C-alpha cells in the first residue's frame, strides 16, 4: 500500500501514539484487502458505545486513545451509535453500569464526538449526495446507506470507523471499488413478502451468502418501502458480511438462489422459540417517525395489554411529541426509550422477563443469545392485533 509522507509519519508515531494506532488499523485493513491507498471519507458513523458491548477493556482503550490524542479531535462529521441506556430512564440499572457508560461517553466527547446516540443516522441527519464516500460501522446503517442512498462505505468495524473519524480516511478497497458493488449472486424471491418481518427474514437468508454484494429479485408488483429496507438491512448485516443489496432484475449472474416459503419458515424456527411473551419490544433498528405513526394507526385507539418498550432516536421522539404521537403511544402503555436500543440492552434482563415479542430479527437474535430470553417473532400488525385491547 502506498502512503503519503504525512501518512507514513503519522503511522510511525510522529504525531503521537493515538494517531499511529488509527493509521495502524487503516493500514492493516488496507494491506489485508488489497487497497492501493487511503482515500478521503466525509462522514464516519461509530459503533462500540454501549458498555455491554465493549466492556472494561473497550472503555480503557477509549480512555487511553482519547487522552493520547492530546486535545485533537475528529476531523470529519462523526455520528455515534446508541449507548446502553436512556439517561432519562434510569430504572434500576445500577451505578456500576451507568458510571462506566458515562466514562465511555466522556471519552468520545474528548474526541469531539457527541450524541444523539442512534443506529439510524440515515433518518436522524441530513444526508450527503449519492456517491459520497463515508465510513459506517453499525451494520444496519452501512447496508442501508450503501443500498438505499448510494453512499459508499464498507461494512466497517467499530475500530475502522473510529480511525476514519480521526484521520478522515479509509482504505480504498472492498465496496469502494465499483466492480465489487455489482452483485454476482442473486436471490430470487419466490414467496410473498407481506410485511417488515418477511423482509427481515429475507435479509437474514441473503446474509448467509458469502458475497460483498447481493442481488434481490422481487416478484412482480412487490415494492420495498423504507421500513422494509430498514428491516432487510438490519438482518442482512446481522447474519452476513455483505454490505450491500441491490433490488432489481439482473441480466448477468454467477448463481441464482431461490428464497421460498420453506426457507422463511426454517429461519423463523431458528430464531423464534416462543409463541408468547411478557414484554413487547420495537427496535432494533430504532424506530423512525413513519414506524411510530404506523403503530398508532394500527392500534386504533386501543391499549397494550402488557409492557411495550419502543426504542427511538431522540430527535424523532421530540418530533413525535410535538405531533402528539408520543403521547398517544405512552397513554396506551408504551414506554419510549431514546439514546439506546434493544441490542445488548440491560433494560431487558432475565430477572425481569422470561420472553419477548418483537418484529425485529436483529432484536430477537441478541435478546435470545445475549439476554438469554425466549423470543416470539411476529410482525408489527400481528403484535398489535394480539396484544392490544
Amino acid at each position, binding site marked *: 500500500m502506498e502512503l503519503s509522507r504525512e501518512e507514513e509519519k503519522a503511522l510511525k508515531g510522529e504525531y503521537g501514539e493515538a494517531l499511529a*494506532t488509527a493509521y*495502524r*488499523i487503516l493500514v*492493516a*485493513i488496507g*494491506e*489485508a*484487502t488489497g487497497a492501493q491507498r487511503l482515500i478521503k471519507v466525509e462522514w464516519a458513523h461509530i*459503533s*462500540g458505545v*454501549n458498555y455491554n*458491548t*465493549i*466492556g*472494561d*477493556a*473497550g472503555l*480503557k*482503550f477509549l480512555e487511553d486513545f482519547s487522552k493520547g490524542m492530546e486535545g485533537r479531535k475528529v476531523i470529519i462529521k462523526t455520528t455515534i451509535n446508541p449507548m446502553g441506556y436512556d439517561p432519562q430512564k434510569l430504572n434500576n440499572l445500577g451505578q456500576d453500569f451507568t458510571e462506566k457508560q458515562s466514562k465511555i461517553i466522556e471519552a468520545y466527547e474528548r474526541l469531539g464526538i457527541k450524541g444523539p446516540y442512534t443506529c439510524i443516522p440515515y433518518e436522524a441527519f441530513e444526508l450527503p449526495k449519492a456517491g459520497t464516500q463515508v465510513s459506517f*460501522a*453499525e*451494520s444496519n446503517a*452501512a447496508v442501508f446507506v450503501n443500498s438505499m442512498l448510494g453512499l459508499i462505505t*464498507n*461494512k*466497517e*468495524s*467499530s*475500530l*475502522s*470507523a473510529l*480511525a476514519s473519524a480521526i484521520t478522515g480516511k479509509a482504505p480504498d478497497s*472492498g465496496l469502494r471499488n465499483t466492480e465489487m458493488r455489482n452483485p454476482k449472486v442473486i436471490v430470487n424471491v419466490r414467496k410473498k413478502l407481506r410485511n417488515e418481518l418477511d423482509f427481515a427474514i429475507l435479509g437474514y437468508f441473503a*446474509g448467509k451468502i*458469502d458475497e460483498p454484494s447481493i442481488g434481490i429479485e422481487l416478484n412482480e408488483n412487490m415494492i420495498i418501502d423504507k421500513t422494509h429496507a430498514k428491516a432487510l438491512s438490519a438482518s442482512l*448485516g*446481522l*447474519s*452476513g*458480511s455483505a454490505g450491500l443489496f441491490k433490488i432489481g432484475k439482473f441480466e448477468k449472474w454467477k448463481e441464482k438462489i431461490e428464497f421460498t416459503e420453506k426457507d422463511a419458515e426454517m429461519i423463523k424456527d*431458528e*430464531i423464534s422459540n416462543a409463541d408468547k411473551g411478557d414484554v413487547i419490544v420495537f427496535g432494533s433498528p430504532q424506530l423512525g417517525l413513519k414506524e411510530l405513526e404506523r403503530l398508532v394507526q394500527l392500534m386504533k385507539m386501543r391499549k397494550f395489554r402488557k409492557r411495550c418498550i419502543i426504542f427511538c432516536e431522540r430527535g424523532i421522539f421530540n418530533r413525535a411529541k410535538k405531533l402528539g404521537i408520543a403521547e398517544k403511544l405512552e397513554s396506551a402503555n408504551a414506554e419510549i426509550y431514546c439514546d439506546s436500543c434493544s*441490542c*445488548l440492552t440491560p433494560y431487558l434482563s432475565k430477572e425481569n422477563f422470561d420472553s419477548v415479542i418483537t418484529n425485529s430479527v436483529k432484536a430477537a437474535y441478541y435478546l*435470545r*443469545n*445475549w439476554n438469554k430470553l425466549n423470543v416470539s417473532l411476529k410482525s408489527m400488525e400481528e403484535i398489535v392485533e394480539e396484544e392490544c385491547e
Partner: protein
Amino acid sequence: MNCKSIIKGFAKGIVLKTERPINLLMLNDNGILNDAAHILNGKSVANRVLVFPYAVGSSVGAYRLYNLRVNKNAPNAIICLKPDLITVSGCAIANIPLVVCSLEDFKMIKDGIEISVDADKGEILF
C-alpha cells in the same frame, strides 16, 4: 503450508475450527461463544488457534477480540479464509497473529490438532 500474513506474530495451539462464520460480539469475556444456532455455541476460543471463514454481524466484534486479549482469553492465533474488517482491526489492536489461507488448505486443517502459525513468515506448520 503457505498463507498470507495479515497481523504478524508467532503462536502455537490446538485448533478450534468451524466452517461457519462467527458474530464475534457473541464471545463473552471468557472467550465462550453464545450463539444458540452456532456449532461452536458454548465452546471457548481462549488460547486456541481459531480457524473460521470470516466474521459476520456486529461491527463491535473488533472490540470483543481486544477484550479477550485484556482478559487473557484471546485465541493464540486466527486463521481465516477472507480478511474481513472486523477481524483484521480487532487482531491489529489485540496483537493476535492473523493469517488468511486458501480454501484447499482450510479444508486440510482439522479441529483438535496442534499447529503453529508463523505470521511473520506466512506459514502454518503442522
